[in-house]
């Protein structure tokens, strides 16, 4: 069995975001880039299959050389080999990214492709389902439980609608949701191996981009903050303000 995980490089959740002079991008300096948190669930699930079923594991990441660190994190966790699909500039068109990766993935002959349900930079949840269509494979999104048997998978998909238990045959695509597993902390041996890992770089051509970021701004500032008061005594005034001023209740 061959399990491919697709990981992406994103700014750490706690990072402050600064918009650059072009007003189309963020300032990268002082930003800590990490593996997309949802992709960690994907990697963990792949590693579980590596351990339980002897699966071969490969991680693929689109990005510039800076993204090598993310692939090294995957190796540190235990992924066997890693490929970077070289993309110089960030692409915000989900379909373009999906096509770009589909080219590489098509050749990989995998049984299972696992990726995070979304990357927390653009937060679109597009990549998994799009790859499903482009590769003509079943894609089960928002998965919180996965069982892999010979030639088929059973997954629990948890959405706002509730939980669905879905079955599909392999090869197939899974997008991982928080709750699927608890990603491991890399062992020191893993971290040392990651330093020496060989990263295969594949070139890919960026096709016709159909969605462009034309501007970027900070979210509108909120109105002034009012400290209503201290303790229980302030409660009647708060409720009055919520009714009369904010008209929220």
């Amino acid at each position: 069995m061959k399990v491919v995980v697709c990981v992406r490089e994103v700014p750490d959740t706690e990072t402050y975001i600064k918009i650059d002079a072009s007003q189309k991008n963020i300032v990268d300096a002082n930003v800590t880039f990490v593996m997309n948190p949802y992709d960690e669930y994907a990697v963990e699930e792949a590693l579980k299959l590596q351990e339980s079923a002897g699966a071969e594991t490969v991680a693929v990441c689109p990005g510039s050389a800076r993204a090598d660190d993310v692939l090294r994190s995957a190796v540190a966790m235990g992924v066997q080999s890693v490929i970077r699909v070289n993309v110089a500039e960030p692409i915000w068109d989900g379909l373009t990214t999906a096509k770009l990766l589909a080219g590489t993935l098509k050749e990989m002959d995998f049984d299972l492709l696992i990726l995070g349900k979304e990357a927390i930079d653009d937060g679109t949840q597009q990549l998994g389902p799009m790859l499903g269509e482009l590769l003509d494979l079943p894609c089960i999104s928002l998965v919180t439980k996965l069982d892999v048997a010979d030639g088929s998978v059973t997954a629990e998909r948890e959405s706002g609608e509730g939980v669905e238990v879905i079955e599909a045959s392999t090869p197939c695509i899974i997008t991982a949701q928080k709750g699927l597993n608890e990603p491991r902390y890399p062992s020191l041996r893993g971290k040392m191996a990651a330093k020496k890992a060989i990263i295969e770089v594949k070139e890919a051509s960026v096709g016709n981009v159909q969605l462009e970021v034309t501007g970027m701004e900070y979210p509108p500032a909120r109105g002034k903050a009012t400290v209503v008061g201290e303790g229980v005594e302030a409660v009647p005034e708060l409720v009055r303000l919520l009714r009369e001023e904010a008209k929220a209740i």
Partner: protein
Amino acid sequence: MLTPTRELYWNIPGHLLVYAAFLVAVIVFAYGIYRRVRLWRLGQPDARFDQIGKRLLVMIRDGLAQAAVLREKVHGMAHMAIYSGMIILTIGTFLVLLQADFNIQILFGQFYLWYSLVLDLFGLIFLLGIVFAIIRRYIIRPKRLNIIADDVVILPLLLLITITGFLLEGARMAATSPEWATWSPVGNWIAGMINTSKAEGLHRAMWWVHMILSMIGIAYVPYSKLFHTLMMPANMYFKSLKPRGQLTTMDLENSETFGVTDIHEFTWKQLFDLDSCIQCGRCQDQCPAFNTDKPLSPKKLILDLQAQMEKRGPDLLKTKKSGEEVIPEPIIGDAVTEDEMWACTTCMACQEHCPASIEHVQKIVDLRRSQVLMDSKFPQELNLAFKGLETNSNPWNMGAASRADWTEGIEVKTLADNPEPDYLWFVGCAGAFDDTAKATSKALAKILNAANVNYAILGADEQCCGDPARRSGNEYVFQMLAEANVEMFKETGAKKIITACPHCFNVIKSEYPQFDGEFEVIHHSQLIAELIESGKLKLPSGKLGKAAYHDSCYLGRYHDIYNAPREILKTMTDGNLTELQHHHDKSFCCGGGGARMFMEEHIGTRINHSRIQEAADAKVETLGVACPFCLVMLKDAVKEKELEGIAVREIAEIVADQL
């Protein structure tokens, strides 16, 4: 009057058999030692053979003078009785040997009279000590002492040796009625009860019994608790001369394995430690984890590891001899459980009170190291802490760029404002990110400004000191942080570093030298006390009600800083300070050390609850603390136990309030 003396081996035909018996005893003794040495030699190298003079001094101070044992008055004295009796009686026997075998005539005249008196009295003292020990162990039976097979033998054996000794002395005196009998008061008293006609026979019998029991005693030493008479002074001799509590540095680049998985991965000294335990239970008495019903007992840990060494010994010796590869048998999950290992707060109370100088904390950290670095197994909550330390340089995983956000709206000099400060102020993660501890940072800024101290903070360039990483076994992350900070300190040219966190204080002062970072480190309590003393800070007296100070482990036991925080509080209490039940070197941890701050406490009762109860019992109004972890833990405890009458306050905040 005859010259007072006595005929050696009077009345004992065939007394030369004593040499044969002694030879047998020595052979058995030596074999016993050899068996242990073989086991210790399974361990890893550890350089403990340097600084002979200093080591001897430590041994004399801690060992011969019984300093550690005497910390506990009553049974400390009882032990002193047995200990001194044993020494004097051994010397007495040695003098007999000198006279009998080397023909050095000393046991006569005035000296002989004093010799008789001293030996007689110390024999009595020894006997009383043994009787006390027997009563305590078999009748009173305190929780920390458990009876093992060894105990059934040793105390009765010693008791019998003493009684037979006195009986044979009494019998001899009854038979010979020396004029100077009063110089042996106990012997004389016994002689009075012995029928003169039967005295010689009794003497002969007792002499043989006494001699054989004594030889058994000698032979038995390396197989029993009596071994401590040799092990403890030796262990004191080999005691670490490094800063107290300093953990070892690991070579991460060139190692195949990390930490201790199997018993032989401990150093020989750590294995030596295991044989030094006399099972007195002082460690367990002081342990915050044990006292709040966690599965950890430092004593049990040492004994379990000792048992593990014995269990693994034969196999390991075999593979060592044949050069085969060792199939590791992990300690964790076998001799020691995960819960035991993670319960430790690294408060050092066990180590501080161990009369044998056993180094418990390093062993626990070594076990954690293997769990974290080799197996990635640790309480789940640490995951976030480790990730936070790696990506954002703080265990709360708050954005690294927001480290100096606490300074907004108040006057705090950064290195950018003030590039040549006298003091570099290392704020620490708690002081920078934790809402409760941020108040301390603000208060300290106010104090430093008021006293015109020339200081600066690093701002967003500061990184965690690494304490939670190192103490939880994540040496990799610790070294990353330590190296970055040392480099940063050097870049700034800082010589003196102040910090309000005892954990930062300890790591920078005691452990950064391992990374070529030698700095003068000052805890804010020391600086504030100095500013008050020199008159740069003026505080009104009598401002606090009934106040007490809670010792932080990393200030007190780790660095002997007990007085500075107390002096500060005293200036505001008209010199009166209450002490909690546990204080100074016996202080009770808040529960936050050893990275426990970042773990949930699921087992037993909560350590912070136990500690705050002491403050409630002492009816304290203000409980001063000098550590952000203590502050958070004890404030939480006040809330949870609804003891709102106790104000847990950081000393800097108390001082700043008065400015």
